[in-house]
Each structure stands twice: as structure tokens, then as C-alpha cells.
């Protein structure tokens, strides 16, 4: 599904990705983890074409993404910070994204699921952070794309919504989709992820299932395993 080869990215003097190689197969939930500043968001944005790498290639579904934008039709993206143009109403934003993507969409069930009906006529600038994140989720899930990229999807959600989100993710996985997630909430990762991709200093430090990770680090729960991984010599 996704091939990343020898990816380098510098922001000023700060090298964020240094020769990163990654292959993600079709189907399943992949959690991209790593300490702050390890390049998780940069990696995701590189895949989305928002960050232009200094070196290396990225291809999605076998198509090189360089100077290409049509491949994004196959991707649904949930950005980390839910910033929207404040002048628009929720309804208008949804309509606009639909208009831009020109794809069949299923926003109605999602709106009902997250109980957003009463907010549809409100301007985005008046919404709370949590509600905004729900709108964000609706926008990301309403299309039927084979690749889903979720950057910190749990931010600001209340427990009930969190449960609905998890159900949603599992449902999409059952539909055979590839889902890429970054999160700081290990409990959430442990619950949904099939595979862990651990980034450190701009490289893949570990890639494998949660079980493999626990085994490797001799830890019983994910949180400790993640905490310990950086000190374990890399051999993955």
C-alpha cells in the first residue's frame, strides 16, 4: 500500500527524517509511535505530500507521489489540529469538501453517530475543541477510501465519542482498509493497532506486532514496552 524509500527531510538544520525506509501492506491498522520530535507527523505529511522531502521516494498504491496529487483521492486524512475556516458553517464545510472530492459520501450516519445535528448551522469558529474534532472525524470518515491516515484522532474527545471512534476504526478495518494512526494514548493504540511502527531519530526503530514488541522488550504492557524500547538495542 505505502512504500517509503530512503526518505530524508531537514527543517533548517534540524534533520527530522534521515533515510527512513518503510513498507506498509494493504489492510490492517498501523500505529506510528515515537517520542516527541521523532518525525511521526513529518512522515505522515510526507505521505500526504504536504511536506516535500529533501531526498527519497514515497509511493502510494504503487504510484510515486512526487509532482502528483491525484493519489490523494485514495486517502482520507484526519489532521492533528482541527483548524477550519471560521467563517463557514459546519454544513457548508461538509458540502464544500464533498464538492471538492466529488465522491459518494456517507456523512449522515456519522453526523448522527457523533450527534452533530444541532451544530450543522453553527459557524466553525464558535465550536468547542471537542466538537471541532468530531467534525474533523466526520470529514475524514465520510468517504470510502482504501487508505485512512489519522493524526492524533483522540484529541479532545469525550469517552462516549472515543468509544464510537474505536468502533468506527474497527469497522473500517473489517472493510479491508489500511489505517495509519499516530497517538500518544497507549491504551488506545493497544486496543486498535495490529502493528507498531516505532520511529526514533528519523528512522524506523522497530516495526512489528504488539506481541513482538512486548517480547523484545520483556515488558507485559505496551506502555512500558514503548518506554523501554529506546534503551533496547535495535535488531528489528
Amino acid at each position: 500500500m505505502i512504500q517509503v524509500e530512503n526518505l530524508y527531510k531537514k527543517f533548517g538544520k534540524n534533520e527530522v527524517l534521515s533515510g527512513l525506509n518503510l513498507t506498509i501492506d494493504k489492510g490492517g491498522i498501523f500505529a506510528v509511535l515515537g517520542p516527541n520530535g521523532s518525525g511521526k507527523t513529518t512522515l505522515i505529511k510526507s505521505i500526504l505530500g504536504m511536506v516535500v522531502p529533501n531526498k527519497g521516494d514515497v509511493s502510494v498504491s504503487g504510484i510515486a507521489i512526487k509532482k502528483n496529487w491525484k493519489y490523494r483521492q485514495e486517502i482520507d486524512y484526519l489532521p492533528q489540529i482541527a483548524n477550519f475556516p471560521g467563517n463557514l458553517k459546519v454544513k457548508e464545510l461538509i458540502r464544500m469538501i464533498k464538492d471538492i472530492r466529488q465522491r459518494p459520501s456517507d456523512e449522515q450516519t456519522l453526523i448522527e453517530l457523533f450527534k452533530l445535528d444541532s451544530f450543522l448551522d453553527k459557524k466553525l469558529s464558535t465550536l468547542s475543541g471537542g466538537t471541532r474534532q468530531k467534525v474533523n472525524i466526520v470529514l475524514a470518515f465520510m468517504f470510502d477510501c482504501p487508505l485512512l491516515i489519522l493524526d492524533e484522532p483522540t484529541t479532545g474527545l469525550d469517552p462516549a465519542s472515543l468509544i464510537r471512534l474505536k468502533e468506527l476504526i474497527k469497522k473500517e478495518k473489517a472493510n479491508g482498509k489500511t489505517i495509519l494512526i499516530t497517538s500518544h494514548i497507549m491504551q488506545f493504540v493497544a486496543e486498535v493497532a495490529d502493528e507498531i511502527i516505532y520511529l526514533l531519530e528519523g528512522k524506523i526503530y522497530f516495526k512489528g506486532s504488539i506481541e513482538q514488541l512486548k517480547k523484545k522488550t520483556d515488558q507485559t504492557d505496551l506502555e512500558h514496552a514503548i518506554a523501554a524500547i529506546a534503551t533496547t538495542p535495535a535488531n528489528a
Partner: protein
Amino acid sequence: MLKILKYSFYDLIRSRWSYVYFLFYLLLGFVLLFLNNDVSKAVITLMNIIIVLVPLIGTIFGVMYYYNSKEFIELLLAQPIKRSSIFLGQYLGVAGSLTLSLVLGLGIPFVLYGLFKSDAIFDFSLLLVTGAFLTLIFTALSFNIALSNENKIKGFGYAVLLWLFMAVIYDGLFLMSLIIFKEYPLDTFSLVATMFNPIDLSRTLILLKLDISALLGYTGAVFKQFFGTDKGLFISIFMLVLWTVIPIWRLSYKAKRQDF
């Protein structure tokens, strides 16, 4: 691109700043015409306003809008849309709505006043065309500044500085160099220096209409060729087009290589 243009235009039309801008021009037009009752004087006053205020508003509004719509741009970047379309759409949305405010805001009072029956119509349309060019140019320049500066304060600072430089400082330096080197033939230099500043360029274009009798008082052959024939008009307009195209081109070039 048209879709982006549509939405950013839509967004702008709903923002109160476009109305403020529009109403400002509307009021200005009415005040100038109906309190003064003198089209010629109104055209001269308008010219002063257009070459000073339009660039300022274009710059400030451009920077402001870009920073305000950063989220929107980021949202769009993840969508299957070409990058240059996003930025050009946004740019044209801002520049277009500003131009529309200018043309309608000033046009309505002048039409109501009976401009079509007056012979000032050519002067006036020239003013509007120049104003439109200045809006396009300075919005493009401000987008470039904003795109290159993540920091809002810095971006605003540079934008205001750009305006101040083009509107005042440049002419001061220009004047000084003319006075210092007055022993030398300066007509080619002064025309070329005019070309390098869109505000001076627009001013020259308007001078060609309003002050041609004074301009022809100068002895130099180059001046005479420039001001005395249609050459001046064509060169000035060509340069204005260049001034519009180059920042837009740089905007789309820069946008393709920018990280978000």
C-alpha cells in the same frame, strides 16, 4: 482552482472586511463627487488615494487573509487538489474581491453622477484599471511575504515595510539620486527607476493623462519619446502586467516547494 476560488471568494464576501472596504470606497466616491461637484478635482484626489491606499489595503488584507486562512489551506492540502490551484485560488479570491470592491465602490457613485456623459470617463477608467493592477500586484506580493514567513508578526512587519518602501522611501531615494547626479544625463535612469516600482509605474500611467502638459516640458529626447507618444502608455501597461505575473508565478513556484 475555480472551486477554491469560489469558496475563498464566498468566504471573503461573508467577511465584514470586504464590506468595510467596499463601503469606504462608496463613501469616498460620493463625498468626492457630491460634496465637491467637480469631476476633474475628484479624479485628481482619487488618483492620490489610489496610488497610496490601494497598495496598502492590498498588502495588509493579503497578509491578513493568508494567515487567517492557513487552516483552510492545510485542510485543502490533504485533499486531492493541485497545490498551485489552492494558492492561486485563494489569491484570486482575495485580489478579486478587493478589485470588485474598488471598482464597484468607486464606480457606482461615478455612474450615478453621470460619468458616461462626462469626458472624464477615460481618466476615470484608467484610474480603475490602475487600481485593479495595484490590487493584484500588492496582494500577490503580500501572499509571497506571508508564504515565506511562518511568523505572523514578522510577515505583517515585512508587508507594511514593503508598502512604506514602495510608496515613500523609494521615491525619496530616487529623488536624492536624481539631485546628486544631476550633472549626468538622467532621463533613461529616471524612466527605468520608475519601472522598478509598481506604485511609480501606476503614477506615471496616470500622469500621462493628467499632467501630460507638464511632462512635455522636459527637454530630453528619451522623455519626449516616452511621454509624447503611445510608447509610454504601452510600456507602462506591459510593465504592470509583468509586475502582476512575476509575483504570481513566484507564489505558485514557492507554494510547490513549501512544507506545511
